[in-house]
């Protein structure tokens, strides 16, 4: 790449990082506005200890559970002789189409006593494990058998061969997935509120409800940011530095599937259980309420916003956010793939921090900013889309990074040496290779944006209601029947995007 365009990309990446860090700067300034004494008094309370304990315990239960489920399921589906692998492959990724707070609404409506850590961990694990399963399955599906065979030939036991040749190649995918799960857990609100499980995020929302822009809420958000930085550091250590792209596939050979034998029924039952918990229960419950909605005559005392209108706003906002997030993630992902230095990694990581904060915190910071400095865009759709982008840009980033890894720099250089210009090389070589990942990333952002709740409540232009806010308003009054159409529409909208993602994660590697 010529020096000038490289500088341009670097400048763009820095700008993007700065935009995503801006809300955090606002929060920090607000939290620190109180005297150090008041800050300490507030933070060193037993209540904060409780919140910290709850948050950490939830992460420590759910992340390993997602790793075990995700890697285990991926291995069973991709590397064994499991029957109907194609069906399982789809069914295990499909829970992504069910927003976590919709799943918790389904669970709480059939099992009202399900709350606390158990309920929270059950629902979040079921909702989030595909973040691990999908990337790991993609790697396993196409893994070259020869390193394992080499290791075996050199005298390693089957397990040691797997441990030393397969596991290191799974590490980036699994740890990336685990990172997404952890960040989601830190920011999760809807599920935990329904499960009466208090974490920093639910406490921040309480602070916001009692006093809008309080120093206390900001202080909690700062603690949450520290937790996020801890998670990021942890993931960095877990990830390792294995390179997953190959130049030329050579004598690439798929490994023979492992025979399950008498383990087969156990494996099938376990996967079946996962699918029932993560997919069948939420979807059938929503379907049941929807049926009730359709069959009861209109005796509704609560006028609800029209389904088509809310769907329209949700879809357009989600598509706008997907486009903006992909565009904004590009410079950072490109720099990182071409030049992996501490500096570029910092730029990339910076964009992750905001995503661990609850939407409400980002929303509030953006309100503060726009009210004071940009009244022209206050309560405009743009500011909402930017809020979504800041929250969900890591999803685009992680996918783009994978896509660029699939298009190693050598290929672009080869095209250049054959006389193609830099733009031509990008368009004809790099873009086709990374397009699937771009679409996957955009789909992930769109799904998240279409179902985001707390930032939407704050930032949506007056008169705009989305599926998520309309659903929440109804479910908040335990009006399951009234909430069902919005829940069903969110699942329906996420479904094609999820299918797209499932397909792409198959092509990608």
């Amino acid at each position, binding site marked *: 790449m010529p020096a000038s365009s490289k500088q341009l990309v670097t400048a763009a990446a820095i700008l993007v990082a700065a935009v995503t860090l801006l809300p955090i700067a606002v929060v920090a300034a607000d939290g620190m506005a109180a005297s150090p004494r008041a800050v300490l008094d507030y933070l060193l309370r037993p209540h904060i200890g409780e919140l910290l304990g709850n948050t950490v315990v939830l992460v420590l239960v759910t992340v390993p559970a997602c790793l075990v489920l995700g890697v285990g399921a991926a291995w069973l589906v991709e590397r064994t002789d499991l029957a109907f692998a194609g069906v399982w492959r789809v069914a295990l990724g499909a829970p992504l189409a069910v927003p976590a707070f919709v799943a918790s609404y389904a669970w709480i409506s059939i099992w009202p*006593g399900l709350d606390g850590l158990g309920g929270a961990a059950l629902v979040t694990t079921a909702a989030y494990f595909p973040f691990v399963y999908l990337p790991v399955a993609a790697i396993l599906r196409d893994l070259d058998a020869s390193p394992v065979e080499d290791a075996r030939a050199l005298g390693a036991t089957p397990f040691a061969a797997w441990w030393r040749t397969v596991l290191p190649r799974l590490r980036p995918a699994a740890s990336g997935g685990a990172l997404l799960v952890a960040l989601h857990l830190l920011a999760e609100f809807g599920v935990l509120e329904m499960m*009466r499980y208090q974490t920093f995020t639910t406490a921040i929302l309480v602070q916001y409800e009692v006093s*809008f822009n309080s120093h206390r809420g900001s202080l909690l958000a700062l603690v949450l940011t520290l937790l996020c930085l801890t998670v990021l550091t942890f993931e960095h250590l877990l990830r390792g530095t294995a390179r997953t792209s190959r130049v030329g596939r050579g004598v690439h050979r798929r490994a023979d599937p492992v025979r399950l034998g008498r383990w087969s029924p156990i494996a099938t039952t376990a996967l079946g259980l996962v699918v029932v918990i993560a997919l069948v229960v939420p979807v059938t419950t929503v379907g049941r309420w929807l049926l009730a909605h359709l069959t009861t005559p209109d005796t509704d005392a609560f006028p609800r916003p029209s389904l088509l*209108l809310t769907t*329209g706003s949700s879809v357009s906002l989600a*598509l706008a956010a997907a486009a903006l997030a992909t565009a904004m993630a590009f410079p950072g992902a490109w720099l990182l793939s071409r030049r992996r230095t501490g500096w570029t990694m910092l730029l990339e990581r910076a964009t992750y921090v905001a995503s661990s904060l609850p939407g409400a915190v980002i929303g509030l910071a953006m309100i503060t900013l726009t009210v004071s400095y940009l009244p022209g865009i206050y309560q405009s759709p743009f500011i909402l889309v930017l809020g979504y982008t800041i929250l969900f840009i890591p999803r685009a980033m992680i996918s783009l990074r994978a896509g660029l890894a699939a298009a190693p720099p050598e290929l672009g250089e080869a095209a250049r040496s054959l006389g193609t210009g830099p733009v031509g090389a990008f368009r004809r070589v790099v873009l086709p290779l990374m397009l699937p990942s771009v679409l996957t990333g955009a789909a992930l952002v769109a799904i998240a944006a279409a179902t985001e709740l707390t930032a939407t409540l704050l930032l949506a232009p*007056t008169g705009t209601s989305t599926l998520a806010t309309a659903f929440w308003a109804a479910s*908040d009054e335990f009006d399951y029947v009234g909430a069902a159409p919005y829940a069903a529409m969110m699942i329906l909208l996420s479904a094609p995007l999820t299918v797209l993602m499932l397909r792409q994660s198959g092509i990608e590697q």
Partner: protein
Amino acid sequence: MRRRTLITTALTSSVLALSACGGAGESYSPDPDALQIYSSQHDNLTQAWAEGFEEQSGIATQIRPGEDASMGHMIVEEGAESPADVFLTENSPAMTLVEQNDLLAPVDDSTLELVPKDRRPSSGNWTSVAARSTVLVYNPDEIAESELPESLMDLQKPEYQGMWGAGATQADFQAIVAGMLADQGEEKTAAWLEGLQENAEIYKHNVATMNAVNAGEVPMGVIYHYYWYRDQAETQEGSGNTKLHYFRNGDPGAFVSLSAAGVLKNAEHPKKAQEFLAYILSDEGQKVLETSGSKEYSVAKGATSDPDLPTLESLEAPAIDPVDLDSEKVTQMMTDAGIL
């Protein structure tokens, strides 16, 4: 694969197109000519008022929903730039907050005269438009009527540990505590909050509390009356196993909370805003409370409430001037007690 991708994309975009068509008739962007209503009142009530007003006056309205305290603070933060013309609340402390920041215009005298003096603040900067009463909901299978506390203050006693629930993080409940603070003073209220922290199960809001009592998770709950009456009138899913206990005798547990309406000083449409308030307090506007199934009390002179409810006068509420309800102090005290 590529073909399938195309199909998926086509599918997604057709959904988009479909919804865009469906939405064409209705607007979902801010309308500069419409009366901007910031409302933390229940959606159904606000909608009913807005629709009735639109029909009668031909003036378009747009509603921004929110929660009492956060919306009050939001208006304060927006200050003179606030797009709001009218602010509607569930409880009055959020309105008092906006008033203290000098952001309210005086309500037209003709409108104020529609409401008895003891149901509005002496300042005249806002008015009540509806009212709700504190009640104790209980499950007779879990606790006998004879064992019920005589006063709300009794709930701090050790014998009620684990015996009651409340939506303590919500403005509804905080208004009740603000009433207690105004009536009983700081010391007694702080002690009661300690008792709450010890004794109570914290639920998300009134409905969750009532459902928990109904399900036998906890024997009693402190809520507002109309959630119970509404559920009784509908499916009774959340209240079928429960009864109501009224404290009366001017007890802090008989506190009546006023829903408030005010016009913003910097409103774009001040005249329309005053007209809207006048409409809510007119016979037609108050009739909405009586007949829509909202089960909140009407407050205007001569207006009658839903016949299912005991009359507002029979509740023997403590006499408290709404300007004395200090929500900021209450949240500070609840934070100190480790509840928030």
